[in-house]
């Protein structure tokens, strides 16, 4: 089975969870004997060189039978028009000292996607493959072009939609159209949860028969054993990790903290991540008299995420809208009980977690306190959560994809 896979990001440089998903999924697919040609646009200049160097140095991809093709672009996972313009300026400023301007494909991100499509159309005609598998909407024009040029079947993989990012307010019509055209042109659509499946049926008019749910899996992590830190001597630690934006519900975390502290003052809250809501939340925490109870470490890297997960007594993901949600899995892998929003895809698969409605601040606080104070509950969630996460391996979604590729080929006949 040969697959032409289109994606916009890939580790070690990636903006959201989708880059990691692409990495683990392609790796597991290769192990199951699938030949993948992964085509992605360039990242911004400052990313590009490092990115390529690491790929070449690592020599990881030939072994995994994964070829990497690159096409220059400024696209990023969470690019909005304004942040694109920012990147664009950076890109221009970083031009090589010889004065030679780097090739640019267009004045804005939408045009970029169309130019990416032109490139991919050419690549598709040169490459040998059976099916096209495209991740997220920026690659959809390219995917549609590749399908038109070759007549090969197409599956698009939806990790998130414009509705989830914006909370339904201020949906960008052009992004919506791009998403919808990709879904319509596709022979099948992979979604990461029933949560997204319902979204596609309700907001994008995708018929149910066309949708396949493939849940993500957990990333294998190393155990930090008994790593601990100074705060733990006096306080218990409640943790939030994620972009500090409306979608992730960090404001509900802050409000729940107030209620927790009323019952138990010896708790510290760590709100890790950055985003447009951060200044407001720091102010809010101070306003509620919790300045000394809150730690805002800002952006945290992979290693710091692991350490935070290890020291935390409970992890909270109060997302307003979470198509899947990989972060609680990382906490559970470090034996930290997780409280997750019912408005998340991952809540469809996890049993050994506590589930809350994101808006129910009382219930979030109730459950934080229960985990902190009922030892039997704490142990049970730790032990069973760890086992549950260890069983969520990437070969499961990979074999689902292989089955779907088979379906695509049969549909074509």
């Amino acid at each position, binding site marked *: 089975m040969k697959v032409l896979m289109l994606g916009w990001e890939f580790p070690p440089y990636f903006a959201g969870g989708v880059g990691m998903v692409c990495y683990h999924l392609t790796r597991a697919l290769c192990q199951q004997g699938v030949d993948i040609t992964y085509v992605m646009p360039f990242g911004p200049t400052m990313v590009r060189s490092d990115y390529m160097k690491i790929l070449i140095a690592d020599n990881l991809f030939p072994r995994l039978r994964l070829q990497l093709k690159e096409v220059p672009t400024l696209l990023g996972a969470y690019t909005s028009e304004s942040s694109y313009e920012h990147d664009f300026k950076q890109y221009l400023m970083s031009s090589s000292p010889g004065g030679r301007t780097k090739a640019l494909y267009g004045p804005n991100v939408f045009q970029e996607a169309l130019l990416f499509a032109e490139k991919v159309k050419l690549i598709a005609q040169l490459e040998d493959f059976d099916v096209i598998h495209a991740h997220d909407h920026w690659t959809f024009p390219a995917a549609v072009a590749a399908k038109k040029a070759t007549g090969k079947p197409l599956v698009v993989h939806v990790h998130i939609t414009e509705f989830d990012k914006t909370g339904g307010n201020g949906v960008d019509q052009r992004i919506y159209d791009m998403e919808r055209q990709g879904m319509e042109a596709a022979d099948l659509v992979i979604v990461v949860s029933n949560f997204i499946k319902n979204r596609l049926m309700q907001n994008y008019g995708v018929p149910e028969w066309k949708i396949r749910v493939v849940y993500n899996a957990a990333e294998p992590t190393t155990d930090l054993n008994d790593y601990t830190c100074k705060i733990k001597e006096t306080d218990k630690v409640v943790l939030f990790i994620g972009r500090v934006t409306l979608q992730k519900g960090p404001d509900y975390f802050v409000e729940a903290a107030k209620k927790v502290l009323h019952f138990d003052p010896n708790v510290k809250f760590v709100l890790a991540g950055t985003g447009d809501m951060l200044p407001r939340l720091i102010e809010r925490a101070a306003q*509620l008299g919790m300045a000394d109870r809150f730690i805002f470490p800002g952006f945290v890297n992979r290693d710091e995420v692991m350490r935070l997960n290890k020291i935390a007594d409970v992890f909270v993901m109060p997302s307003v809208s979470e198509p899947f949600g990989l972060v609680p899995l990382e906490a559970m892998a470090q034996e930290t009980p997780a409280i997750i929003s019912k408005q998340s895809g991952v809540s469809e698969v996890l049993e050994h977690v*506590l589930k809350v409605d994101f808006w129910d601040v*009382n219930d979030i606080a109730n459950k934080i306190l229960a985990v902190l104070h009922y030892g*039997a*509950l704490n142990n049970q969630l730790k032990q069973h959560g760890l086992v549950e996460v260890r069983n969520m391996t990437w070969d499961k979604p990979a074999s689902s994809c292989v089955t779907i590729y088979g379906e695509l080929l049969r549909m074509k006949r």
Partner: protein
Amino acid sequence: MVAVCFYFQVHQPFRLRKYSIFDIGQNSDYFDEKKNSEIIRKVASKCYLPTNKILLDLIKNNDGKFKVSFSISGVALEQFERYAPEVLHSFRELAKTGCVEFLNETYFHSLSYLFDKEEFSQQVKMHRDKIKDLFGQEAKAFRNTELVYNNELANFVQGMGYNAIVAEGADHILGWRSPNFIYTPKAVGSMKLLLKNYRLSDDIAFRFSNKGWSEHPLSVEKYASWISDVNGNGNVVNLFMDYETFGEHQWEDTGIFEFLKRLPAEVMKNPDNSFVTISEAATLYPSVAEMDMHSFVSWADVERDLSAWLGNPLQNSAARELYKLGRLVKATDDKALISDWRKLTTSDHFYYMCIKWFSDGDVHKYFNPYDSPYEGFISFMNALNDIAIRVREIANKDVSVFNHVKALTLVTEQGTSMSQGKVCESPAEKLYETIMNDPESFMSKINSSKADDSDSLFDQK
């Protein structure tokens, strides 16, 4: 000669509502009045009323030859009184026929025998009084919650004046022996032990509507022939099952009501067959052997042991803390408080905390009013914490109660509480601590939490 002995279990717990930590010390409405009343009314119309009507007709049309036995938990009776008195009325009609026996059990359908034998005796006595009061019967036969049974329990129950008891006919106990005879519990003297024929019982209770079962659809002729086959190889076929089998677990459209209506006549076509109640079977047939059941056996799940209720640390910890509080609660002499505590002893609360996900886990999920076992545990522990506070408040007002509680704490093993806040893992131990140390600060904590709860997200927006 083979007699069919039907015993139906009727039980409905007082389900807990989602009782949060923020309810502790604020209100003591632990039980979900709305959900409980809805369920009682729903099951009444789907099962209790139509099935009672069928049984009444069968008894009348068979000149007293058709007989059945019931065990109805006290908490179910209480809810009938409250939410569906017509159900109680229809059971009374059945009692009047003289063909229906009512067994005794623990009033609260509890596992109290395992934790507190004094409490067990009190709950059995409450149930005995209730049954006598409602149906005019002095029960001589006993069934323990979920058929939890062993030698020692039989001995204890015989000491309370019962001369027959029922248990699960589990394969690992019976071995080559048949459940279709009457036995005597080991070293218990004259008491009779009736064992459930789980194959024939489960054919009705679990497999009746299973289209994947090779005997589906089950006709009365076929079933009656299986009963007749026991002739020459047994005295009594014990068909023990949840009464909710009729109309609730097996819906009306499966044909379960028609099956029940036609079964007695079909069984009695064979003149060697008859129907008996539990006590009649115990009187009619001699014991063929002593039955040694040293370990606890129940009728639940594939394991037929206690693991459905006491199989994981959540369940064990919740049960331990519940019974630890018991003596302190009773020391207050406060009727409402004692009644609330006793409603928490109902075994269903522990069943909801089961996390055996596979095979039987599905059955657990079906009966579980919570989204997950963890939800059940949290509400239960929160309610226990509130009960501890109520004990404390009563003790604070009444010197004699205070001294009584204090006396109990002195003879109780002291432990450390996990929490510095007001919720804790072991409410009983927390209570010991606070009652021994400074009651004032404890009370002020409760009171201050009442005053300052307005700063919610919704007030801000």
